[in-house]
Structures are given as C-alpha cells and as structure tokens.
C-alpha cells in the first residue's frame, strides 16, 4: 500500500493534509496523551467546512463517536468516523491562540494551534477568510456536573488512532497541540502522524 499523504507532525506544530471522496484519513497519536486540533474544508468551496456546531445539532450529542457522520456549516456530510480507538474527543472549546498564552499565561510568542492551522492552510495556497472551530481529537474536556467542564489529559495511549473516511473531497490541517503549561497533552507535546490513502492506515 502506498499512502498519498503520510506526515509525522512534530508536537506543537501543524501540517496540512487532503483526501478525495472515499479516501481514509488516519490520525495516530504516536506517543500517547496528545490532543490534535483538526479542521477540514470542502475542496471545491473552502467557505464550507467541517463544523462541530452543526455536527452537534445533527448528531443530537455534544460528543462524537465511531459511526458518526460529521457535517459542514451547510449541514452536508463531509466525513464519517470509521474507527475510534479512544472514544474521547472535544468539540466544545477553541483552538489555543496567541491571546491564550500571552494574556492568560503570560507567555507571549508561544506556539499555538490557531497559527499552526492558519500557516498550514496558507501553505496550500488557499485563501481562507475565517478559521473554523476545530474538532479537538483525543482532547479530554469532560462535563463534570452542573454544566462545568474540565480540562485534563487525553486518554490516548501510544499508537491509538482515529480513522475518518472523506465523503467529499476535503483538505485540512492537524495541529498536535503545543499546550505545555496546563494539562491537555500530558504537559509535553508529542508528535502525531496523519496518513491518507485508499484504506485505513494499519501498523
């Protein structure tokens, strides 16, 4: 099997990927305890993107799980989850961004998912006006009673993965989150691998 896309993305950095309709996108947490912000745009019109907001409404759930069809901001199917080793992902909190580190943690210039995603999409030469809300793969944001949410480390172990099949031609970005100040990635960002091909990536 040859893979059309096969990238190891260093912890704290971002990389783009693309998939044609029918292809499988496998995201592997190589060392465990790592969350990855994941966005996808429809290739024929990047004003249409994978939208966690609309997914919630379509799935009637604030969480996603294996078998779920993920939809766009125009409420059309974009990807379907065909394998999910971990079963815990986040679709409610934002990508970390410059303000998060500069203002809230006093660390200006810290790497962040928002800039990683902008940069990797720009590298494809595509004009994007607005960055969608991400689906935060393996991110563990439990609802802990009375609507309160927690921020804790992912449950993923080394080599665990999620596989999404594209239902239309899509491209996107994966950013293994650089958060190393509070829990979210075991306080130590580590690499993830994104592989695209005619079958789920096994190994």
């Amino acid at each position, binding site marked *: 099997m040859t893979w059309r896309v096969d990238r190891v993305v260093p912890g704290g950095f971002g990389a783009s990927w693309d998939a044609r309709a029918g292809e499988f996108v496998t995201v592997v947490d190589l060392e465990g305890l790592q969350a990855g912000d994941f966005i996808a745009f429809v290739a024929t019109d990047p004003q249409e993107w994978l*939208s966690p*907001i*609309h997914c*919630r*409404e379509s799935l*009637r*759930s*604030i*969480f996603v799980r294996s078998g779920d069809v993920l939809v766009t*901001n*125009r*409420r*059309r199917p974009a990807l379907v989850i065909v394998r999910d080793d971990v079963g815990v992902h986040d679709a*409610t*909190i*934002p990508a970390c*961004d410059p*303000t*998060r580190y500069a*203002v*809230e943690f006093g660390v200006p210039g810290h790497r962040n998912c928002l800039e990683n995603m902008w940069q990797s999409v720009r590298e494809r030469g595509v004009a994007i*006006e*607005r960055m969608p*809300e991400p689906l935060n793969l393996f991110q563990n944001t439990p*609802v802990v009673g009375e*609507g*309160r*949410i*927690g*921020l804790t480390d992912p449950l993923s172990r080394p080599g665990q993965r999620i596989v999404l099949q594209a239902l239309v031609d899509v491209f996107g970005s994966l950013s293994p989150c650089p958060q190393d100040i509070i829990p979210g990635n075991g306080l130590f960002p580590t690499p993830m691998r994104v592989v695209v091909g005619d079958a789920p990536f096994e190994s």
Partner: protein
Amino acid sequence: MRDQDRSREIRIPARTGVAFTVGAGTIIEVVDPEGEQTADLWAYYENDLSEYLSAPHTRIGNMRLFPREGEPFWTNRRRPIIRILEDPVPVHDFLSAACDPWRYEELGHKGWHASCQENLELAMKRAGYGEVVCPQPFNIWTNFHLNADGTFEIRRPATKAGDHITLRAEMPSVIAISACPQDITLTAGLNPTDMVVRIR
C-alpha cells in the same frame, strides 16, 4: 447625544431581526412578551467586527457549557463582551447553530423560509455593517436539555409572557437579535412571536 446612548425600546416583529449599537455599560433587557419564544443573540466589538462573542471561548473562559448570572460571554480574543446580570429563566442553548436555509431544507421545507442566520445578515446590512460572519449565537430561551451521556433534546421554551433576561455590554458593541422563526420544531413553541428589547 449619540443614538446609542439613548434609552429606547425596540419591538422585533416575529421571524425578523434587528441590529443596534451600545456603549460599554449599557443595559440590554430582552423580554419575551407572549412567552415560549426564543431569540438568537450575536455581539461584535464595535471598532472591529472580526472580534465577536464566541461560544467556544466563552465555554473555556468560564469553564462551563453555559454562562450563569454574573458571568460574561467572551470574544474570540478572550475579552468579556457581555455579562448576564439577571436570568430568572436560566434555560438557554449555547451549543447549537443559528437556524439557516439549510436547516429548513433538511426539515423538508420547500422554498424560502425566514432563518436566524438570514435575519442577522439582513439586520447587519440595514445597520450599515455589510457582510459579517455568523458565529454560533447565544440562543436565549432555547430549551436545551442535556442528558448525562452527552445527548440532548430541544424542548419548548420555559418562558411565560413577560419573562426577561438582563445583560450588560462590557465593551462598545454591535448587538444583533433575531426572534427565531422556527415553526417546524419545538424551538419556538411552534408559534414564532415578537420579542422586545429595552436598552438603557
């Protein structure tokens, strides 16, 4: 005196929307005059509309799915933009998208149907702001019932005639409010009605 500094009352006819500007400190009271109605609310920083009330940033800012009395809504630049001062009927939705043309198509409606997203776009144009993004709104009184397993259902609004929520602008803002035109699901009690906004 600027128009935005004047006390006023705006009646939003059923199925339509309005946009207006307010200074920091302005009190915005949203009233459901007939009961069982829901309204989508958006807020943008007046001096730069690319900064707006952001649901995910509000969730992480408060570490809650839904802001409570006393808590703010946060922008995508992590600054408070609006604060809830009084919330006597604290059953809202802060996880769903605005209804839009695709939603009504999905529900089997043929042809044009008013939607909160279109109401936002029209109201912002009328107020002179041109094209804006439609972020996930604060769906006032949309009765979002969350189950322990993360699934949810939308029930009839819990408001009675005259119920209100009181908000305060924390920065100069452009506020848009749509009296939700949803008449196919229970979101607006199957009977969309007017909303009233009192500004002081």
